[in-house]
């Protein structure tokens, strides 16, 4: 509204938060957090959770993969493999991987459709038994350009450092085709409606300030028939396992953070963000609220991690 009738930034309790000041100036009112939604995180200087998260990821970006392996004892790779198998993408799929900074999901997607495409190719060649070696070689050359079968993955992340690490990894590992990198906000995606076949967010949604907005955006950019997949730490119901998990999270992980990444506070923050995150049923309800149908979840390792799935129908 006109100046003088809207509450000032200080009234909303976001004074001193650079991100919210910007958001206010740009008129994106509904992104402003109410005072009770801002929380004081002892280890992070800004009281705005968005900025706190941003700073955390800026500092952990370079050691992100190493830390993932140490914290989860390498099991995060298995979780991501399971996610990809669940997705089961066919060649020609357009994937949006949100908060996918360092590219773990994107690379797996490319590998998956690549193998699927190769299998199809071999099947095709098998059916042409009477080709000469030359003809076979030529046909392989032709199809090499379509080895991904028009599959594409767009990696979208809010953090420049994470994207840079991801791009470097891609170069290092030899991924070039079918992969794009975009700096964007999960709560306000710079993509048109009804574009993507699959939307994934792996270990990213707990870092989004307004999960409801991110889910709405996911719904918007998916094509009708498109699938939403979320891989995230969740709640362990078994009391004994829960106790062990807590012990591990609060006692071991920050220590690993300090030893490996020289950063205790960021990893303590990460552990706390996991605890704050809604449990399976609550997240399922939020996903349904965004409009998704056939919403379901699959617990991995007794609920340490869960994959939520929904469809835009």
């Amino acid at each position: 509204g006109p100046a003088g009738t809207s509450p000032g930034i200080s009234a909303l309790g976001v004074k001193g938060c650079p991100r919210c000041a910007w958001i206010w100036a740009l008129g994106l009112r509904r992104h402003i957090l109410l005072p009770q939604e801002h929380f004081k995180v002892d280890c992070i200087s800004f009281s705005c959770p968005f900025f706190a998260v941003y700073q955390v990821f800026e500092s952990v970006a370079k050691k992100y993969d190493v830390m993932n392996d140490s914290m989860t004892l390498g099991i995060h790779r298995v979780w991501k493999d399971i996610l990809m198998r669940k997705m089961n993408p066919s060649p020609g799929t357009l994937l949006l991987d949100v908060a996918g900074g360092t590219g773990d999901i994107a690379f797996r997607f490319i590998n998956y459709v690549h193998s699927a495409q190769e299998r199809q190719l071999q099947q095709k060649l098998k059916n042409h038994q009477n080709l000469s070696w030359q003809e076979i070689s030529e046909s392989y050359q032709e199809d090499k350009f379509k080895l991904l079968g028009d599959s594409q993955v767009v990696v979208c992340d809010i953090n420049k450092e994470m994207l840079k690490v991801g791009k470097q990894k891609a170069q290092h590992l030899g991924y070039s085709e079918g992969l794009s990198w975009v700096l964007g906000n999960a709560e306000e995606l710079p993509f048109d409606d009804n574009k993507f076949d699959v939307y994934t967010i792996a270990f990213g949604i707990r870092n989004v300030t307004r999960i409801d907005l991110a889910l709405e955006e996911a719904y918007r950019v998916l094509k009708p028939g498109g699938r939403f997949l979320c891989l995230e730490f969740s709640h362990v119901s078994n009391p004994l396992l829960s106790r062990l998990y807590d012990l591990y999270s609060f006692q071991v992980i920050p220590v690993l953070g300090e030893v490996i990444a020289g950063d205790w506070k960021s990893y303590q923050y990460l552990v706390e963000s996991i605890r704050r995150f809604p449990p399976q049923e609550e997240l399922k309800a939020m996903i349904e609220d965004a409009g998704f149908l056939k919403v379901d979840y699959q617990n991995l390792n007794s609920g340490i991690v869960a994959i939520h799935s929904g469809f835009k129908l």
Partner: protein
Amino acid sequence: ALPGPPGRAAGPAGRESSSRRQPLACCCRPGSGGKGCQRANPSYLLLRLFVCLFSLTCLARYEEATNELINEELGIAYPIIDGIPNMVPEAARTTQKKPPAEGSKQP
């Protein structure tokens, strides 16, 4: 300073239709003298997927000289830094060549 964006909940007058997402004709429009469709090119794909966060319409083009993605309609440009398009409002700049029209929303 940038003009206040319409926001997703309710746009300015005239933009409240539910079919707010009619894309602008893009570079692949016939007779546009465009560079031709390179379907496998990820940048080309992105240009077709992107929308300007302020106008909610698709971006018109990529400007090679300044390495930016341009929304002609509102005169807004998004930078591409280190090969990564920065599609956030904070990164956008205006490319107004003439003074804004009457009834401007500029502060």
